[in-house]
């Protein structure tokens, strides 16, 4: 199930919230666990088994860590088991075919592919459960002895599908002793609505434009159309992903949880380093805490440090998908970050803010070319089009049509990528507090209204020719 569906908004969520608030506190975690399983099973009835196995496995690892209290060797073995076990699940379901394909190419073998569909959210929940064992081992969080509460952590439907990646220690306390309040619930409503608008009204619509450009025939390709296309993707992925995170954080608040932030206006960054402090923050935090720092971080010899960064970015790339373009995309950022760290950071700081934002944005867009196109050989073709190499016109009729048709949406996306709306909200709060409530109410109503209209339309399917 996805949040941006009529099913979630008008069936699942109202029912779950109603029951949740009718139940006594002691039963709420159990209910969250079961409703999360239902949420997951709706689209993946069989893969729920993997999640249950993963839950029991990590729950037991936690108990073992408790039993081996004081025996560091044994505890380390348990953590190693937990990490290997989770990586094995992730590796098998996400990367098996990728490994087989590359082995076949490299060794001229002919191993058959397994064709396993990817279990939704597996990249997220395996990272979460690994954090549990590690946090407990590091004594940064207590052992969870209630399996229903632990299950609620693993399967928690708000962040199950697309994050943020919530480390166990971030919500260990809330899992057992959270307090739901009206104010927190209302904050959740506002946050959820922001995410819904980003996803349904911005990402879905600008995404259509990227699909159109990808589908243009050779005769309609042009430099202009290629730029429109990749800019559309740039906004699509940001609003899609950050919108989903906003919805997750908002839902968390409605249920009494405070999840970590995941995005902080990445497209206004003044450097690539800053971009990565603002983009998918919870993934960066996870890698820093559980991989980069254990490898020695930056307190090592420069060569080793560069290797550490290389390792992090190859893994970050690969985490995004089992395909070489993602690895390439990770390495692209490795190169940019090293260049920035060792040569360019001073220069970037001296540039006017607008210029350094523009440069950073440009490199992010170039990165999305590598990210968006899975076929590695097609990536260079797309770069060729962007920069007018080969026999490609600068402008095509369709390019101008798309530009004029989508200009207002582009402007809206560009504005929504900056903190301008957040600042307006803040100013209203300080300068005209009495207008805050009516203004917010109006915006929420419009947002619910238009999101519903676009969701209903997306399933509207006129049958044009005949009926049987």
């Amino acid at each position, binding site marked *: 199930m996805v949040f941006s569906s009529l099913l979630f908004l008008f069936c699942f969520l109202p029912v779950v919230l109603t029951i949740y608030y009718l139940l006594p506190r002691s039963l709420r975690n159990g209910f969250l666990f079961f409703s999360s399983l239902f949420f997951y099973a709706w*689209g993946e009835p069989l893969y729920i088994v993997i999640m249950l196995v993963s839950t029991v496995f990590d729950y037991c690892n936690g108990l073992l860590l408790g039993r081996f209290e004081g025996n560091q060797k044994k505890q380390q073995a348990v953590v190693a088991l937990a990490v290997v076990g989770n990586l094995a699940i992730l590796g098998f379901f996400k990367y098996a075919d990728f490994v087989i394909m590359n082995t076949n190419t490299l060794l001229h073998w002919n191993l058959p592919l397994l064709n396993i569909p990817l279990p939704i959210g597996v990249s997220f929940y395996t990272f979460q459960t690994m954090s549990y064992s590690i946090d407990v081992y590091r004594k940064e969080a207590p052992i969870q002895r209630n399996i229903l509460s632990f299950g609620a952590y693993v399967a928690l439907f708000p962040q199950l599908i697309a994050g943020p990646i919530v480390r166990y220690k971030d919500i260990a306390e809330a899992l057992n002793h959270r307090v739901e309040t009206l104010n927190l619930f209302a904050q959740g409503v506002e946050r959820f609505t922001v995410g819904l608008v980003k996803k349904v009204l911005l990402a879905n619509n600008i995404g259509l434009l990227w699909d159109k450009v990808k589908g243009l025939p050779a005769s309609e390709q042009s430099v202009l159309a290629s730029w429109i296309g990749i800019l559309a993707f740039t906004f699509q992925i940001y609003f899609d992903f950050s919108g989903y995170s906003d919805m997750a954080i908002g839902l968390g608040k409605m249920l009494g949880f405070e999840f970590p932030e995941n995005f902080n206006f990445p497209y206004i960054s003044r450097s690539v380093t800053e971009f990565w402090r603002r983009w998918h923050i919870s993934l960066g935090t996870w890698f820093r805490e559980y991989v980069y720092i254990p490898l020695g971080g930056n307190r090592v010899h420069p060569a080793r440090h560069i290797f550490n960064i290389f390792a992090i970015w190859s893994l970050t790339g690969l985490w995004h998908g089992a395909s070489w373009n993602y690895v390439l995309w990770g390495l692209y950022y490795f190169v940019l970050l090293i260049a920035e760290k060792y040569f360019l950071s001073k220069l970037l700081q001296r540039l006017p803010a607008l210029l350094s934002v523009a440069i950073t944005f440009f490199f992010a867009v170039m990165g999305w070319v590598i990210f968006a196109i899975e076929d590695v050989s097609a990536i260079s073709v797309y770069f060729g089009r962007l920069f007018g190499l080969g026999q490609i016109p600068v402008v095509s009729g369709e390019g101008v049509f798309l530009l004029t*048709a989508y200009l207002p949406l582009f402007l809206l996306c560009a504005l929504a990528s900056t903190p301008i709306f957040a600042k307006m909200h803040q100013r209203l709060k300080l300068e005209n507090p009495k207008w805050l409530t009516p203004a917010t109410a109006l915006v929420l109503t419009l947002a*619910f209204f238009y999101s519903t*209209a676009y969701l209903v339309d997306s399933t509207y399917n006129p049958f044009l020719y005949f009926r049987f």
Partner: protein
Amino acid sequence: MQTSSTSALSKAATFLFVAFFLGGSLLNLVWPYQEFSASENRFLAKMPVFSWESLISGEFTGDFETFLTDQFPLREFWVSVKSDTERYLQKKENNGVYFAKDHSLIERFDQPDLSKSQKNLSFIAEFAERISLPVHIAWIPTATEIQKHKLPSFASPVDQAAYVQTLIQGAAGSSSYYGSEIWQGLYENAEEALYFNTDHHWTALGAFRFYQTLMPFLGYEPYSENSFQREVVNDEFYGTLDAKAGGGYAQADQIERWQLVDPTTNPSFEVLIPDSNHEGNSFFFPERLLEKDKYTYYLDGNHALTLMRNQELPQGKRLLVIKDSFSHVLAPFLAYHYAEVHLLDLRYYNRSVDEYLLEQQIDEVLVLYSTRQFSVDNHLFKISD
């Protein structure tokens, strides 16, 4: 500590959220079940029947979501809200339909699937070689070709004349192929209402302009415009494009009845539709004007076979037209010149076409498709033997 204003805000936000989504879900529960959507021209999904197998396969959950969205309260209202919003955002199109000038809607036609079209044409060529009758092969252009001036600025639809030319150049055999030369009557009168504002079909006037250019190629002298009496029989037709684009933009269309003026030259016809056991004397079906899809006024819409017999011209030729629905409004014009015009729709006709030709002693065949339908049609293989 919370100030009173934040708490008022919290109450308002929570209230709105609960009212909208919980209220919406309750409304969903009590909303009356609707079986058929007139504007979408299809049956809506029913509540799926539960079984463990369908649950495991994912079929049940998928069907349930379709059911939920199909039966969503005020569905058409929401769709029109989206359509209006797109227009205010200068989108120039919605769901593949241009908001064209003069309050008309025009369906996009950008990239015909050339290999599919060529395949379709090869079925026809094979058929034409086999049957040893004269076969004429022609296409009807859609509005994006004829009424380019009505499209939103910078729209760049496919060049349909070039598309047809490419097909003809690659075609095999000795049949007569007609390219854009038979669209002259349409091109020259492009400012007229040749296509509906709200439907993907052409109007009677459009069909007439086409008829005027086509007939000399088939060896006949067409009747002139003022030999016909035109009568508006309905002026509130909202067609398929209106449904697709979401409604509210285009002006309602008129349905016209064209008949020869001079009663002495106006022959009487027999009109037979075997699959609905219809036997009548008119090309027009006034009871269809009460329905949503008023284009079915012409020859009662889609049927496997439709036969028009000209009582005054028994010595004339017998023509078989293998066609899509664009021919429904054109066929009456043809019928004045032949002893019999048979319309055959391969989407519904599943018997052997070769046998039909023999049975009915057909003299000539006209294969006539709209360009857009031709590029997506999946039924032409049926004539390939």
